[in-house]
């Protein structure tokens, strides 16, 4: 298992690229932050609207901001993969050891998975279709509020745990 993980989660081409270009790691860090700002800015605003902040927003047009949150998320995934697959360029710890011992990385991955399950539940429970009909000033149903609250807490948790990852190495 250990050999398998260390083989498949180390991409020598990325490690070599990061070793040869000092800006590779820093640009990834910058874009990881840009991505998280786009994600929290749009998804966070959507969640807060469901919770009752800025209720003057009708839901359906507010959804048009969400693709920008998805772009932010994809930026974070892409740069997060650079940190993972190219980790050797930055620290000596093998990736298997980091995955097995870094509690913050584990919590971050767990919260990301829970945020994914929460999103899936938002669609499958019918809450998504229900809130689409919300006009300006209308209150979201309790289930949608619970899902929005969970989303906000989970994504902020992802940011918090993510920031702590280097401190467990």
């Amino acid at each position, binding site marked *: 298992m250990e050999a398998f993980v260390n083989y498949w989660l180390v991409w020598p081409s990325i490690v070599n690229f990061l070793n040869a270009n000092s800006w590779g790691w820093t640009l990834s860090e910058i874009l990881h932050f840009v991505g998280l700002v786009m994600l929290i800015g749009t998804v966070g605003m959507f969640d807060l609207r469901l919770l009752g902040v800025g209720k003057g927003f009708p839901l359906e047009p507010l*959804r048009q901001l969400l693709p920008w949150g998805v772009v932010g998320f994809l930026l974070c995934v892409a740069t997060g993969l650079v940190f993972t697959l190219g980790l050797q360029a930055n620290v000596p710890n093998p990736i298997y050891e980091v995955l097995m011992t870094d509690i913050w990385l584990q919590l971050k991955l767990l919260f990301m998975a829970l945020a994914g399950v929460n999103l899936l539940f938002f669609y499958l429970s019918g809450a998504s279709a229900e809130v689409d009909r919300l006009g300006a000033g209308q209150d979201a149903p309790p289930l949608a509020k619970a899902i929005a609250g969970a989303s906000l807490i989970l994504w902020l948790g992802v940011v918090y745990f993510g*920031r702590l990852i280097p401190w467990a190495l």
Partner: protein
Amino acid sequence: MEFLSSIENSGFATWVRESPSLLAYTLFLALHTIGLAFLVGFTVALALRLFGVGSRLPLAPFASFFPFMYVGFLVNLLTGLVLFSTAPINFLSNPVMYVKLGAVFASVFCLLKLKRLVFSDLAKADARPVPANAKTLAGASLFLWSVALVMGRLTAYSRPVVIASVIAFVVFAVLFLAVVFVTRLGSRGEMSGQRA
């Protein structure tokens, strides 16, 4: 200089810097990122709307998110001062830090001007077209936030790395904006088609 080292060696700064407690350095660092996410994130959302994304979205409710942005700014001011206190001499001798701080305050200034321009009379916010100045201020604010964010990330790196990273970011940003511009031109055509 003596004053700065007395800050650096104070009990509080030493504790923040050296304690393994989750209430010390890492908490201030994480809160600094969360404050940034709210402040800059909601600025991005507002700017997107002013640039025409989700144009059926009324402007007035954006005013309800300004308190979150103010709290985000306050959190970052306080956590920023604490992080600064852990190594004031280092930070003050780093030109990157001055560029970052200049960009932060200029950006907040643009945001406050934008607030006065668009949201001073909420009843009128949606009754008139978006003032051209508002788009300029939103664009300036986003540009300045990217400078602040890039510089903030680069405070710990040496000058050649800073220069290479800034060039790399500018290249990425130009490519990104080019893609956005081209795809938006496409979607704009679609929208006018719907209206007709």
